[in-house]
């Protein structure tokens, strides 16, 4: 339900669409991004030029992009869902041939004006495609085996392609984003139960056969899995990140050391302090209060997404909004769990706060779709 005008039965047109914007989401996104600017400024040691300024420019561009997308009717986005998915797959295919390597992984396509990460785009692509699929699918077929296997293929195809790059974090987000849409679309519990069961069986099979003649993986692969699960077994590798990040977070206390007063970040104990581990700076400088504030901002964004989706009688729009919200949720949940030592280290940025162009633009595009669905919802 629109909080501005509840009685308008017609879909708004022209500039008046601004009035029907989901302003809470837009403002919350801005607030989160602003937190990011502060942190990037602090991490650079009081230097705007280094990370904060480029980040601000990107956010402004992203905000413009979101507005632009919001103005385009959701029906258009629905029609191009399939195309978007196919183009996304095509870009992913192109990466091994045309992509540029950075830090040992090949994920980027250089389009001249921007280096694009097709795997990021694919997060939206999968959600759009699945939302479209379930909007189109007949009610009675939702839980039929064939009609369940089809979206599974749609999800797994890009997931495995991204895993090849390799980019475990993004692959995980694609998988979960798609799964959430299927779940909300009403696919029977049994399929989810079966999926969880088979994954559990596979994992236990892998571990139970370890050391026997039938072991499924090579020894070094087990070793890698062990370090992944328990970073402290490799204190100079990923264990170092976790220890240092917990030290920084823990030294913040209730209210933190104060803005620009963090010692751990300034003295460079944490690598990737401005990207994946930026939450530690927030924790160190603003303490528990700062961390929880950010968590609340994120939760409010989710809340407004759910509110928008549940009041949207357009099935595509509702599924898309929930899918985007869920992807957003998994972004920050995985990042924070990793930084606080609850999950293994996977390269997932803190959404809108971590320094980085691709992820931010893609998120703004995703929220552009959410806005469009919100503005153009049937009344």
């Amino acid at each position: 339900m629109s909080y501005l005008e509840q009685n308008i039965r017609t879909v708004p047109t022209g500039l008046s669409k601004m009035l029907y914007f989901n302003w809470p989401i837009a403002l919350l996104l801005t607030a989160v991004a602003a937190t990011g600017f502060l942190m990037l400024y602090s991490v650079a040691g009081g230097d705007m030029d280094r990370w904060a300024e480029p980040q601000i420019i990107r956010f402004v561009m992203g905000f413009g992009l979101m507005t632009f997308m919001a103005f385009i009717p959701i029906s258009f986005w629905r029609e191009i869902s399939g195309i978007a998915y196919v183009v996304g797959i095509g870009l992913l295919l192109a990466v091994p041939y045309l992509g540029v390597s950075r830090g040992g992984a090949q994920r980027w396509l250089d389009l001249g004006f921007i280096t694009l990460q097709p795997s990021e785009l694919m997060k939206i692509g999968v959600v759009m495609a699945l939302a479209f699929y379930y909007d189109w699918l007949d009610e009675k077929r939702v839980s039929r085996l064939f009609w369940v296997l089809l979206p599974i293929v749609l999800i797994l195809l890009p997931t495995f392609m991204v895993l090849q790059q390799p980019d475990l974090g993004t692959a995980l987000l694609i998988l979960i984003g798609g799964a959430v849409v299927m779940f909300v679309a009403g696919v029977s519990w049994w399929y989810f139960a079966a999926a969880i069961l088979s994954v559990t069986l596979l994992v236990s099979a892998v571990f139970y056969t370890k050391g026997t003649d039938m072991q499924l993986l090579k020894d070094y692969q087990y070793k890698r899995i062990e370090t992944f699960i328990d970073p402290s077994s490799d204190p100079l590798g990923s264990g170092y990140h976790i220890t240092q990040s917990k030290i920084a977070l823990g030294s913040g206390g209730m209210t933190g050391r104060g803005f620009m007063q963090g010692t751990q970040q300034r003295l460079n104990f944490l690598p990737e302090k401005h990207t994946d581990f930026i939450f530690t700076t927030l924790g160190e400088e603003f303490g528990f209060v700062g961390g929880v504030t950010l968590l609340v901002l994120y939760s409010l964004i989710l809340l407004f997404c759910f509110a928008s989706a549940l009041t949207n009688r357009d099935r595509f729009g509702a599924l898309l909004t929930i899918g985007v919200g869920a992807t957003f949720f998994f972004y920050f949940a995985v990042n924070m769990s990793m930084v606080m030592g609850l999950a293994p280290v996977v390269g997932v940025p803190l959404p809108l706060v971590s320094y980085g162009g691709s992820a931010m633009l893609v998120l703004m595009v995703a929220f552009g779709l959410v806005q469009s669905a919100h503005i153009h919802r049937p009344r």
Partner: protein
Amino acid sequence: MRRPQKPGRLRQLLTRRAVLLAGAQLGVITVLGVQMRRIAVEQNQSFRLLAEENRVNIRLIPPVRGLIFDRVGEPIAYNEPNYKIEMVREQAGDPEAVLRKLATIVPITEEDIAEALETMRARRAFVPVTVAQDLDWAHIAAVSANAPALPGVNPELGHYRIYPQGQNFAHILGYVGPVSDYDLRQTDDDDPLLLIPRFQIGKNGVEKRIERPLRGKAGVKRIEVNSIGRVMRTLGREEPQTGAEVQLTVDHRLQRFTLDRLGDQSASVVVMDVRNGDVLTLASAPSFDPNKFVRGISVPDWKALNENKYKPMLNKAVTGTYPPGSTFKMITALAALEGGFVTPRTSFRCGGFLEVKDRRFHCWSRGGHGRVSLKKSLKESCDVYYYEVAQEVGIENISAMARRFGLGVAHDLSLPAVRSGLAPTKAWKAQARDADWVVGDTLNAAIGQGFVLASPLQLAVMTARMATGTSISPRLVNAIDNRPQPVRGREPIDVDPENLGLIRDAMFAVVNERGGTAGASRLRTRGAEMSGKTGTSQVRYITREERERGVFRNEDLPWERRDHALFVAFAPADNPRYAISVVVEHGGGGSRAAAPIARDVMDEVLRLSPTMNYQAPRQKISSRQSGGGSAG
């Protein structure tokens, strides 16, 4: 626009699932919040501490190693300042230009410059690199005066260990050297100083055994660093504690005299004060210059030391063990007297050999000694007497007596590799050789051959115990930081003093009566006599064929197969104060090769005796003891 969705089953399902999803997400968010609270609030104290440690780095300031003096206060190990110049690349701007400027003040060559530049390029920009060392104080002063023109250049103070007595104390002191990975694996010492690259630790001798007190305690400099270790600023400083001052019991004059006397023979001498166990001399020849080791010994020097057949690196006085030969006869004699197997009047006939179980055991005198009593058996060193006696006494009694006199037991001297020798028993042979003890073993042991082994130190201890009747133990360290080290073993040995008197009389006769085996080595010191015992120990088995051919003159044999020459003595004979043992490896007969050395050394001991009292260390060392050293 598409048709608005009919509120149907799917619509309800979507709402229900969305709410479930939201609930699950809320759950995860709650967990995140709780974890955040746990880390930031509940564990705040410990993490804050860790953060502090992260930020504040502690740099160790190495302490100055403790000095070592002899008993009269002569420094025998000290430190010489090593003025050096360090350079930090990132502070220097143009390192090469600065080095060229430096070269005008300080003697550094083109090669030094090239090497320094090379090293600096290889290290991180903020790591100090030594560009010159072994400088004079004047150079340092000049560099300090020109500091503004020499950015990144810092004078630093290090230390070299110096052993002014050179080879005379090589075996006693050992030497220091940079700590190695091997050292770190060997020790359970967790002193962080050991982790400083090239930190000097004792590698041998007293330097090794008294390492901890000598090392001192590290000072610390608390500095703020960033994650790559660059120093941001110094927060505080705690001065290091110089190592303990160690005073040995050895007299450097006597030590020098003894080593000079031994010359290039492969021999060792131990002189002890019988009243308190002070080791006055512990000489092992040939020796080596420990100073060479401190600065890193050259490969040819190292090879020469290792390949020398006289084994200069070995401290033969404590590590070398030899069959004591006839010097062991006092033990057998005492065991016989104490057990009541013989009296001073008991005598046996020596015909040059004794046949036991169809085997001939020869006396060194082929013609035999005729009738031999206890006194004559020691004075003329008759072997047959002991063959006869040993069959009665048995090996267990003999070895038990040997252990009471310090043979076959390890003495706790502040040196590494102090060997315990061997006083054999039947049980020992059963275990070590997996063979039964036979009577021939007893006969050989009775004259100090066969399985019996003793080090020169043990022989000196044995003689000191014979001279005093107490179980005195040797000591090498008199005081550590003015804390006197205890004298051990003043309590009397449970042996009939009368029997000991008989032994001492016989030892007196060995040197001072006609026919004694050491008659040629009476002391030259007026009014003083020495009591002693010669020993000649075989290192080979003389075959019957050789014996018949008469080829067992030592001079005809290669060095390695000649007999060891031994001599033990105490003086003055009437009021014992000093005990001595001499072992000349493959020197031939004890009376000819060992006794004269003992005589000369003992004369010197008596000459120096009035001036051998302990004196406070003489602090004439030029070394600046200020701890203003480098931070490593």
